[in-house]
């Protein structure tokens, strides 16, 4: 990572340094492309007559921002602290039994430290398996059924942009909505008109990552969250037979108990986080238009007394335009308010002397482009113009008085996958 101190008046020097770094990064990227184009390692690894498969991905991003930090120290030059490496294996014993697992190392500034973790690992058993109906169970660690992009949010090629829409797929406390240990029940009905897919999850959703705790308790929280009971999640998605329309509803209810240790200042004793999302997507040959709207009920209690209670409101609309083979344009607007009854944070700012209203909301205009260099390697560039800092992490922006209301980001990314 390159950290350049950026005192006022040395913008040209910074830009030159940035340009050199971008060039160095591109050269590295080109070397990787060359390497892969000579390699025979160009598609999925199948074994045992296709029953076993190995897939993976490696993604490197670059972020530079003006004023606030995202994915590293991006406001003082260029942050390369954005890397995702994953490998998965699956084995189908027969049509009713599948075992799969993925390990993931994700580095995203201070929000994710790159340590290797089991992303998912489960046994999938089908009880009914006909062309019209599928009914099955998954046991182990599964990705949560959350919106249109939740399950594969860390796999660059499946994302609609360099980053997922932060109002709904927030990175700063991402562990909460990411994956859970327990059981999924899934059901699929196929008719001539379309397919209806339902997933019901009963899982343990730990939110003991630094990002979540720094947000819910404070930057130095050392205690531990525990589940009151298994979290419940439900997603129903319908897809029309002509695959033009997809849409549905997701809901999660996660209730947690916080066990403080000495040093926590006035911690809550419990929390309830309850998001629901409505999703709708239209696709034709050149366009994919997507919109998701979400409300998230959040409650904190201390000794059985409610101490905070608000409903966050988040949404985005997005268009992806495949204007030429291998090319795609992205345009997105996303918005979130932490408390929908105080959308601009005015009441919040009035209640506490040092409180900053724009930390309670964020609105982001995103324009991006994707270029598929080969079927296995893609490059992306993206510009963000943002008002508000609701989804930036306090871990990367520890001094709230340093936050800026209006800010922007430029991101580049290369991703190889097989």
């Amino acid at each position, binding site marked *: 990572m390159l950290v350049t101190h950026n005192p006022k008046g040395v913008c040209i020097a910074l830009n030159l340094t940035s340009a050199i770094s971008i060039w160095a990064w591109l050269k590295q990227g080109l070397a990787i492309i060359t390497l892969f184009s000579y390699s025979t390692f160009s598609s999925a690894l199948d074994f045992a007559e296709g029953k076993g498969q190995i897939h993976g991905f490696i993604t490197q991003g670059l972020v530079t921002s003006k004023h606030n930090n995202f994915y590293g120290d991006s406001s003082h030059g260029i942050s390369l602290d954005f890397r995702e490496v994953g490998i998965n294996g699956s084995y189908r014993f027969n049509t009713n039994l599948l075992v799969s697992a993925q390990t993931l190392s994700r580095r995203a500034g201070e929000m994710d430290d790159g340590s290797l973790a089991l992303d998912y690992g489960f046994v999938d058993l089908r009880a009914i398996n006909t062309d019209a109906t*599928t009914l099955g169970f998954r046991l182990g660690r599964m990705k949560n059924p959350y919106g249109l992009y939740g399950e594969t949010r860390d796999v660059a090629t499946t994302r609609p942009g360099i980053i997922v829409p932060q109002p709904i797929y927030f990175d700063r406390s991402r562990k909460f909505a990411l994956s859970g240990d327990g059981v999924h029940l899934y059901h699929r009905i196929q008719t*001539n008109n379309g397919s209806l897919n339902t997933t019901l999850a009963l899982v343990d959703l730990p939110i003991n990552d630094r990002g979540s705790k720094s947000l819910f308790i404070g930057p130095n929280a050392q205690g531990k969250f525990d589940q009151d009971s298994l979290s419940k999640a439900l997603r129903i998605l319908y897809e029309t037979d002509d695959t033009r329309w997809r849409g549905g509803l997701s809901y999660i209810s996660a209730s947690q108990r916080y066990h403080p240790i000495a040093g926590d200042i006035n911690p809550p004793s419990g929390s309830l986080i309850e998001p629901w999302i409505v999703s709708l997507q239209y696709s034709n*040959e050149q366009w994919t238009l997507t919109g998701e709207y979400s409300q998230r009920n959040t409650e904190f209690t201390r000794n059985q007394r409610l101490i905070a209670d608000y409903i966050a409101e988040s949404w985005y609309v997005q268009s992806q335009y*495949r204007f030429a083979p291998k090319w795609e344009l992205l345009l997105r607007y996303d918005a979130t308010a932490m408390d929908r009854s105080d959308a601009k944070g005015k009441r919040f700012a009035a209640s506490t002397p040092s409180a900053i209203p724009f930390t309670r909301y964020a609105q982001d205009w995103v324009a991006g482009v994707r270029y598929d260099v080969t079927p296995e390697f893609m490059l992306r560039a993206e510009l963000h113009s943002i008002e508000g800092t609701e989804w930036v992490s306090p871990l990367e922006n520890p001094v709230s008085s340093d936050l800026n209301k209006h800010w922007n980001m430029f991101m580049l990314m290369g991703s190889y996958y097989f």
Partner: protein
Amino acid sequence: MIVFAPLGSAGGNLTPTSVIIANANVIETSVSLYQAKSFFGMKQLQWSNGKSVRVFVLADHHLTHINFCKTILNVFPYQLRVAWDRLVFSGTGQSPTQVNSEDEMLSRIANTPNAIGYVSVQKLLEYEQKKTIKVNVIEIREVGHASDSQS
């Protein structure tokens, strides 16, 4: 210039020049459109006799693949890719096996029990004349019912 593709079929003005083929041991001679979509979408995993389906596809940019997706399945190639990626990277399913050419497609289908794939009509005729390879052609039924061929 921004042009919206027609809302109707994915094929637009394309005429179907490809057919679904299967290994000679497959008893089905026809499938409904949604069954075909489920097979190639890697959602339906078995034939009506309970045998595991083995799915073969060509590369996303192969002209026969594009023709097959748009005129037979009525989907766009990128939609299949998105669906496969979603299965593969959430662990909930697997991707089909990709072959490098139509010749390889025909030989893999002929030599793999329970295999399904597709090929251009032209290529199929070429092989039928040579009588070197035996595969079944699977037709799409005009009207399919959900209860047609449950296992």
